[in-house]
């Protein structure tokens, strides 16, 4: 029975967190599959997960390595196998040297824990997003231990190093699926992380601007999920391990191109721009054996896709090729559906709504609103048209949890409903604003917010999209701080009762926090949260509200006050 220890690190994260039973089970199953022996854990859930901020990675990569090495050494005291999970989310700013430091840490841990006089051998199983290049410094560092079998590397795609050793118990697909499961279902994550950018976008028919649309669907934050979905599609539609050639149109693939090339590399497929394919007649032999897969990021009218499909079919004299769209504006199912375009069946992952309007009927053209760029917001804050369009759709509501010191607002925009349809876009805009103000990547920052419905939804999206760490403070604790006369006694009280938020904030890896709220009416709560953070020796770098209804007070604030939309509400302050 092998004793297994876990060291879990999340890069690009502001505060430590804990992992539950499902994570432990996953790590144990990996250890069992790799060692081919029964295993037992040396730690019980909840497992602590180390947080490594981007700032720390960039400023003191060596210290990060030391921290990982230290944790490995502690766990190694009672474990024979350590599973080290180096979780690097899409938003984390980890590149090159940071990887080397992480691998150097692993190397150091092995040297310090695996002494010749010790009888038992220590094995490290490293779960990494991608395997390092064979010529990289990281690989040179790890090669001796890889050769001895002391280290095993497994990528998110299930690729494993060293390759030579046979591991009958390890199933690559099963690993990938289980990993997807513990990190969330890809289609659900795609649905939530897809940025539905609002704006005034031109649509062209035969090169002529004939229509306008109000939405652009940006999948840059979901590349991991789309990669998994395309991989699954290939497995289901190309049996027997066949790998199709991916074909795409680069001018319609702003966010698809990169992820397709990564996936092709991972699964041993080839990936081509359509123009390259049309100039390589020798590919016809491959296409006879295995139909190529034409992939687009969005299918709307279907004209562009049909044009490309016809070109490929006619060039290679194929009756049909497989076509796949990540998103479709129409279709038979909300997700995993299909639609017929010019007689061909096009599979898609997610249906998204779009409104096409002729230029003559376009309300934005009537108002002479500037045209927007796809994937790029011209304004950090929301425009009036964007904000009030969302309000029109979501409606107004009475204020949910008014504080006792002021009247309830009878009508405010229904922010939770606005977030429900526009959460990823709003969260990405907040991320851009925070980056602009603080100069840091958002996921380096700990966000503190009141534990209320609107703030909860907002911060959940922020966490999903930007990977920020969110700490929710109970309303009663904020109210106590508002009337704070004896701060020491309040801290003593929290020390004694140890509310969850208090423990999280004490353990946060960064001193910098952003205070966030759904909307701000009187700045009282803002000041109270500022006071609480001050007592806890945290620096508030910015106060952020989705909507600021008292912008006239922002000028008096000692910290930057930001919002996505603002006006002075006369029923408020």
């Amino acid at each position, binding site marked *: 029975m092998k004793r297994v220890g876990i060291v879990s690190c999340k890069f690009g994260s502001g505060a430590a967190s804990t992992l539950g039973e499902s994570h432990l089970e996953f790590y144990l199953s990996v250890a069992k599959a790799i060692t081919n022996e029964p295993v037992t854990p040396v730690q019980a859930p909840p497992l602590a997960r180390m947080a490594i901020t981007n700032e720390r990675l960039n400023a003191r990569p060596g210290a990060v390595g030391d921290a990982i090495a230290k944790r490995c050494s502690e766990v190694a005291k009672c474990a024979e196998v350590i599973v080290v999970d180096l979780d690097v989310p899409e938003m984390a700013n980890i590149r090159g040297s940071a990887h080397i430091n992480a691998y150097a840490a692993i190397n150091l841990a092995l040297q310090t824990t695996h002494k010749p006089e010790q009888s038992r051998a220590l094995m490290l199983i490293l779960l990494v997003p991608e395997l390092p290049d064979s010529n990289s410094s990281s690989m040179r560092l790890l090669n001796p231990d890889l050769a001895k079998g002391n280290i095993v590397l497994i990528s998110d795609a299930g690729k494993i190093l060293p390759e030579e050793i046979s591991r009958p118990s390890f199933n690559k697909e099963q690993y990938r699926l289980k990993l997807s499961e513990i990190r969330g279902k890809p289609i659900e994550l795609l649905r939530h992380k897809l940025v539905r950018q609002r704006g005034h976008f031109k649509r062209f028919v035969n090169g002529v601007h004939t229509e306008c649309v109000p939405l652009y669907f940006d999948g840059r934050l979901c590349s991991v999920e789309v990669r998994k979905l395309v991989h699954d599609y290939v497995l289901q539609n190309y049996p027997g391990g066949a790998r199709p050639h991916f074909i795409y149109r680069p001018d319609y693939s702003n966010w698809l191109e990169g992820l397709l090339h990564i996936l092709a590399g991972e699964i041993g497929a080839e990936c081509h721009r359509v123009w390259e394919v049309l100039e390589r007649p020798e590919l016809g032999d491959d296409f006879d054996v295995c139909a190529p897969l034409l992939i687009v990021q969005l299918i709307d009218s279907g004209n562009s896709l049909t044009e490309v499909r016809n070109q490929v079919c006619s060039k290679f004299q194929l009756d049909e090729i497989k076509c796949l769209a990540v998103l479709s504006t129409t279709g038979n199912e909300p997700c995993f559906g299909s639609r017929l375009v010019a007689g061909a069946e096009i599979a898609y992952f997610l249906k998204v709504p779009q409104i096409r309007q002729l230029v003559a009927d376009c309300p934005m053209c009537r108002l002479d609103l500037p045209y927007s760029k796809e994937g790029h917001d011209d*304004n*950090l804050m929301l425009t009036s048209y964007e904000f009030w369009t969302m309000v029109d759709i979501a409606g*107004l509501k009475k204020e949910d949890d008014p504080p006792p010191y002021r009247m309830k607002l009878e009508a405010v925009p229904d922010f939770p409903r606005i977030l429900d349809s526009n959460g990823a876009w709003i969260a990405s805009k907040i991320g851009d604003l925070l980056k602009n103000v603080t100069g840091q990547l958002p996921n380096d920052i700990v966000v503190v917010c009141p534990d209320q419905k609107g703030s909860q939804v907002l911060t959940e999206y922020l966490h999903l999209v930007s990977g920020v760490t969110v700490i929710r403070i109970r309303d009663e604790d904020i109210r106590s701080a508002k009337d704070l006369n004896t701060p020491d006694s309040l801290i003593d009280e929290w020390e004694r009762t140890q509310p969850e938020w208090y423990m999280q904030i004490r353990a946060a890896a960064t001193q910098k926090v952003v205070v966030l709220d759904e909307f701000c009416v009187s700045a009282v709560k803002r000041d109270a949260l500022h006071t609480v953070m001050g007592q806890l020796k945290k620096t508030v770098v*910015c106060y952020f509200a989705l909507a600021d209804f008292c912008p006239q007070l922002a000028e008096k604030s000692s910290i930057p006050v930001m919002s996505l939309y603002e*006006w002075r509400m006369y029923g408020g302050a």
Partner: protein
Amino acid sequence: MPRKQEHSATSCKVLVERLKDCKSSDQRVLLLEDLLWKSRNLPPGARWFYTARALKCFVDGPVAARLDMEEPEMMTHKADVAILTAIPPELIATKIAFNIPLEIQEDEYVNGLRFWETPLTDSTGGQLDIVLTMIGESGNVSCAAACDRLFNTYDVGLCILVGVAAGLKGKVKLGDVVAADIVLDYENARLESDGAKKRPRQFSPGVQIARDLEYFNPQQHNWYDILRQASGQLREVTYLEAPPNDDFWNPEFVSGVILSGEKLIADGSLDVRRKEYHDRIRAAEMEGRGFARMCEEHGVPWLVFRGISDYGDPQINKDWQGTSALDAATAARLFIERGYKKPI
């Protein structure tokens, strides 16, 4: 880099249209509040126009008819700070200092003057809208004409003249930046039979901006690091060499009197003029007088930042133009970000 907010006039236009179509009384109140807030930054004519159109949504009959106003010619452009340069090396250096891509097309074009807009974040996290332009030739008259056109196109909060100048040897060195606490028009005179009677005129920045300048020292804000980084970009522009020697390039920022006239001083007479006009003269150039006069005419606070590119002597050359303009432009940027307090 995206702007922080759309133009207030655009917001107001949208809000009035929304008000017209909105059926919910609760939402109309919110829209009206929003309109009042957004219109506060508009010129009075535009504010009255949008307010009248909004009121028209709440009344009908003869009252509504009386609210029909002709749309005023609005000043939709607002710039918290305008930067004026005279010649291409100054424009390029300023674009680099303000992160404006060199090849990017201008945002506005008026009678040959090109305007580039860019946002800047001040020390409190607030956004400042910056506009940059180039006069295209040296001289006070050209500068005054360009200023006038600028102020008719943009509602400007502060105007800064950024560029190069001849420096007084012994008091300043190549690359130093002189901020004018006085611009001295030394050429004004009355010609009489027994000779010229000198009548120099002096222009001083406003009290508030002069005080802001007193508190400002770019070296407290990583000026040298910023300069080193920006000079790398400047080097890529082949005809602007910068700086001649990194090790000795640690510019100083000083305040002083800047002489301004129509003559390019290249005879080494700067020290003579110092003795003649003002003992705190540190530099001489050819735009400051027209610039300061036109700013005063329009009630716009102003500043002049000049990088020293030569000593106004017979050895005058253009080797330091790019570097010195960059010194002045980065100092101006730091002043806007750290030293300037936008009036509330």
